């Protein structure tokens, strides 16, 4: 076990010795900063609602939203606020933090780049030969590298959180009582802001882990980093369009893309009607395990021949 820990440590040493890794984390911070600036300077930015007119403002907002989506959950929340006399806080660091959950797609991108390179690069550099002739089995090396990818994702997530929080505080200030409103099963409920953040980020991370594992599989199986990164990013971005395209086919529910967007179970907006959360979780797990097993088998069995 200590041996495995050392292998993971080695992978982290190698990863953070590369300038590219630091540049990627830098990009992530720049994206957060950019988003904060955009949100702060946007027309719809409201720092604080006026005590006298906030109900009216919310009604106007609802009317605007209703023009393109009369069933939007925001309208229900606004109505709930007006009925219960709960003045909204305006944008706070909290809100910025969970609004920023879409930035996990940047995170996914970076993780895919790391996952796609971590094995393929060893082949490209020729160092795979030195790596594999040590008293550590290929299986151990494979999983140490995989663990290292997940560790990178976690590190990048922490960076994303810390800087979102930091810029959120700087641009919007801390406010609110740590709760937020959300529509659940057609009812407006009050939930802890942490629950909301965990939910939003958590569901995005499922996607991240699946595509990173996919990239890792290609990297291990075909030893080609560009191919691994390219296909994983491509599939990640076309995923939802593919779901639309095939939604009326009988096999659609077994396709990974249809299941991967777990937010469909919190928002209730499903493309394929008969999907359930359990079914999706099981399907995703099956695909995930298949990716890992293919990568693992090919990595451990294939000869390391010359170029």
């Amino acid at each position, binding site marked *: 076990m200590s041996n495995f820990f050392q292998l993971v440590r080695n992978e982290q040493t190698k990863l953070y010795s590369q300038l590219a890794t630091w540049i990627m984390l830098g990009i992530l911070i720049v994206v957060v900063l950019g988003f904060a600036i955009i949100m702060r300077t946007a027309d719809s930015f409201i720092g604080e609602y006026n005590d006298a007119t906030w109900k009216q403002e919310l009604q106007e907002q609802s009317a605007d939203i209703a023009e393109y989506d009369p069933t939007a959950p925001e309208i229900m929340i606004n109505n709930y606020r007006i009925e219960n006399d709960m003045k909204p806080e305006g944008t706070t660091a909290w809100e910025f933090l969970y609004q920023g959950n879409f930035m996990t797609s940047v995170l996914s991108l970076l993780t895919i780049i790391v996952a796609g390179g971590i094995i393929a690069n060893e082949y490209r550099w020729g*160092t795979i030969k030195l790596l594999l002739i040590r008293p550590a089995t290929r299986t151990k090396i494979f999983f140490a590298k995989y663990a290292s990818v997940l560790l990178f994702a976690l590190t990048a997530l922490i960076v994303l959180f810390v800087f979102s929080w930091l810029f959120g505080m700087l641009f919007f200030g801390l406010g609110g009582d740590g709760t937020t409103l959300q529509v659940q099963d057609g009812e407006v409920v009050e939930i802890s802001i942490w629950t909301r953040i965990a939910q939003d980020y958590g569901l995005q991370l499922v996607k991240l882990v699946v595509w990173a594992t996919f990239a890792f599989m290609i990297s291990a199986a075909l030893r080609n980093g560009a191919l691994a990164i390219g296909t994983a990013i491509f599939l990640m971005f076309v995923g939802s369009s593919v779901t639309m395209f095939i939604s009326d086919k009988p096999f659609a529910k077994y396709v990974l893309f249809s299941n991967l967007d777990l937010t469909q179970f919190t928002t209730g907006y499903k493309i394929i009607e008969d999907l359930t959360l359990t079914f999706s979780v099981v399907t995703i797990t099956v695909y995930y395990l298949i990716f890992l097993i293919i990568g693992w088998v090919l990595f451990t069995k294939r000869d390391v021949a010359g170029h």
Partner: protein
Amino acid sequence: MTEPAMQLIGLKKQIGSKLIVKGLDFDIQPGEVFGFLGPNGAGKTTTIRMMVGLIRISEGDVRIQGKSIKTDYKEAIRHVGAIVENPELYGFMSGYKNLLVFSRMIPGISKERIDEVVKLVGLEKRIHQKVKRYSLGMRQRLGIAQALLHNPSILILDEPTNGLDPSGIREIRQYIRRLAEQENVAVIVSSHLLSEMELMCDRIGILKNGELISIQQIQNAEEDTPSEVVQINCPAAHHEKAQRLLQEEFGVTAMASGEKLTFPITREEIPSIIKALALADVEMYGVAVERKTLEDKFLHVIGENVIE
């Protein structure tokens, strides 16, 4: 006789329907420098890759200190240090960090051992520089350093002098000899440079089309065997006189062909022969000394270099 450091037992590699390595059987003893010689495509690299488990063995086995690389991989590979083909290391890290990373993969390597190995290969001054700034010679040294970290009893070096300048080659040769003689390490080197191999190896296995066609023992230089071939260019009219003189005074039979006389002789005798021939008024237009090298033997056994 001690246990061999490495045994190859009926080692075969088949890719598709083609046999790349056709059954190799030999032992390598501790303290021996064993050369693996063969033209390109003979199966040297494939064999070396099988020895270290990078390529799977189709049939047969490799035993390292009695442990099978197939079934007891971790125990077997523990004794092996190797550079397979080029010394490719992590260019974005310093030489020291490279060694540190490799040391963590094998339990029980101290920081002191790293420093010791760095000193051994003479990289102290540059070890904290990034490897991408290293010259090929420095990389080769760092490659040897990583192979020696865990005190292996078998060192495998694939083309160790590739790309080195003459002084670098000599230094590597000296390391290899020292490791074999003082630390009793079995060293396996592969090369297609015959003269190189002759200088550093005790035994040379010649590989051709995946078969071991000969194992040559390299003789010591001091041995008193005719190692030189002398060719004298003189008019045919003088041949008989010269041949008689050589036969009577030195006991050498010279072959005549065209205007040339050719005969084998030890190095020490060459000056006195030239003197004797000159004194006997043999007209000589040229004297050429050829070393009867491994190359001759090699080309003799290998025949024409045909890759099947």
